[in-house]
């Protein structure tokens, strides 16, 4: 079973993102664990892809470092296994890695028991082997920024088979039939993109956020807002606007990047991440104090 509902069960959730393996396997484990200590309710772990078209320069940088540090899909699963945290985990990656894992995995695994209904002939690409392996190591769900609802049925089926969640992004431009298509397929939470563009920390919170949340008010899945949130104050505003969760990536990756640039010891960067996590979590909670009574 996916543990994602637990993250949203009591109060607004703080959902940090880091690229797994940035800048190397061991330090990255420390960094992710420090986020959990700082109050993360759910962690989005990036599995780096060479063409991250939805990411701005900050996360692109993280992806390059992690790839140079040797991160691969198989290492990613080892990373999740090695991780000592007690919160749900979501794998954020691009479709080609999910799709290709099938080709690779089915070579050796064909005779292993329970090949899975969705797996094709040996060597066929497809999402089922990736989801199976992710479920084995304890990944609860997936966000795939280049997989719109129209193309997502094979992955949705694999997620259903292993009781995993599939999170979709709703953008400021998403309207009408597209919203319905997403609503039919989404589970876990919906990722509300706060502004147009690519990922990257910003100083302000867009007023597109409130409009987007409005459009989703009837959905019975938690709404987590991301893209550009960088401070406790931003987090508070987003929750006040009605979000059930706050997703923060670039502002945290910036701390990792600074650590790499200045050659800071891992413990020092981890401590800064923990402090930043605490600030963001507290911001989210402060937002709830204002709106808590009227939230459903």
């Amino acid at each position: 079973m996916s543990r994602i509902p637990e993250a949203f069960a009591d109060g607004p959730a703080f959902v940090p993102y880091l690229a797994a393996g940035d800048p190397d396997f061991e330090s990255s484990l420390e960094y992710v664990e420090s986020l959990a200590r700082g109050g993360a309710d759910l962690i989005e772990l990036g599995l780096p892809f060479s063409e991250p078209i939805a990411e701005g320069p900050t996360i692109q940088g993280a992806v390059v470092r992690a790839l140079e540090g040797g991160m691969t899909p198989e290492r990613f699963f080892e990373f999740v296994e090695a991780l000592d945290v007690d919160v749900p985990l979501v794998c954020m990656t691009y479709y080609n890695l999910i799709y290709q894992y099938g080709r690779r995995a089915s070579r050796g695994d064909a005779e292993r028991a329970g090949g899975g209904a969705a797996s094709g002939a040996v060597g066929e690409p497809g999402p089922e082997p990736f989801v199976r392996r992710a479920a084995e190591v304890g990944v609860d769900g997936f966000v795939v920024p280049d997989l719109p609802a129209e193309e997502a049925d094979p992955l949705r089926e694999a997620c259903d088979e292993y009781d995993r969640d599939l999170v979709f992004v709703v953008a400021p431009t998403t309207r009408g039939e597209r919203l319905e298509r997403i609503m039919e397929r989404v589970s876990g939470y919906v990722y509300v993109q706060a502004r147009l563009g690519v990922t990257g920390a910003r100083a302000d919170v867009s007023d597109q956020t409130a409009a987007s949340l409005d459009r989703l008010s009837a959905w019975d899945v938690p709404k987590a807002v991301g893209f550009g949130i960088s401070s406790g104050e931003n987090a508070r505003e987003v929750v006040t606007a009605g979000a059930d969760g706050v997703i923060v990536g670039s502002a945290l990756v910036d701390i990792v990047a600074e650590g790499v640039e200045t050659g800071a010891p891992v413990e020092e960067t981890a401590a800064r991440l923990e402090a930043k996590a605490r600030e963001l979590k507290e911001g989210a909670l402060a937002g709830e104090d204002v709106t808590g009574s009227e939230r459903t």
Partner: protein
Amino acid sequence: MSSGTFGRYGGQYVPEALMPALEELEDAYERYVLDNEDGFVDEFRERLRDFGGRPTPLQPAEQLSARYDAEVYLKREDLLHGGAHKLNNALGQVLLAKYMGKERIVAETGAGQHGTATAMAAAHLGMPCEVYMGRRDTNRQRPNVFRMRLNGATVTPVDTGRGTLKEAISETMRDWATTVETTHYVIGSVVGPHPFPAMVRDFQSVISEEARGQVRERAGRLPSSVVACAGGGSNTMGAFSAFVPDEGVSLFAVEAGGASLRVDEERGVAPNSASLSTGSEGVLHGARTKLLQDADGQIVESHSVSSGLDYAGVGPELAHLVDEGRVAPVTVDDDAAVEGFHRLSQEEGIIPALETAHAIAWLEDATPEQLGDCVVVCVSGRGDKDLESVVEETAKRDVPNAPDMDVFRGDTR
């Protein structure tokens, strides 16, 4: 559920923010391009004629005909305004953007030919234009950088990765995801999410529509084969599409074999750009297609002496036609391409783009059975942009048919 597929290839794999723009574009494509609403197609044809210089000639190539003992015809897209087939598509898309009420154009470019064509079309139609180009390609193709700027476009170098077309496409998608409400992305080849591959093919198919009529008029018959170079595949699809139903016509897509056809998995490099010949199915830049990738699905860096072919993917329709056996993919390596460049320059008085030189070079490798007795070769572009590269690349290797390049080296320094 997914739309715009060619067999198992194609589709729409883009961030959610872009999906509404693709729906809007699909709608505009159907109304204006397919149904000629508001006379779009008439205006497009008229501008291709008056501004672009269409129709381009189909030239009998006497020296090549003697050399290969077949009637060889050259479809002269190098004589199109801007010096390459790219204008067909750029003009079509910028005009469409105008019909859609968009205010700004973005584009990516590898060889600079697509960027140049887009900058020209945007200036012609009065639209502001920004072109992303890999840093390495800005150095390889400086004349085109100047031309884009002269036409009023902003050229933005991209420093990520190896600084070639792949990175430029990713960066343009990022720009588009930010500005999608007012901006149209003029994609440069038959790649990307639906409806781009079909739409770009339609804009480019004027090449084969003309060539088919011209060869029947000249030779009184259909050709036995059509040969065109394939980067993303727009010139190939343009040169092939009217011939696809003619089962008796063989279609050869010439890919860049680069330095070697093997992938160096250790370094994550394919020293070639032969995704049809050596790639495997995957998802990149909005479409499922044949790609150069490692076993994990990471996209590997491609290589070609010609920046316009230097791309790890290829159009989904072309991938499908290859699977169906309708199009035969073949390769030509860097050395042979440089030789082909010098051959066409000397034998026919046409200095071709290094991309085109791949198609010319393959005539040397082709068997008489493959070519048959009547061959159409698409001269996708002219070589002015490549003169500096050719001086350098010729000096690097032993090219038997090259003039003494030291003479030129002094001139370019």
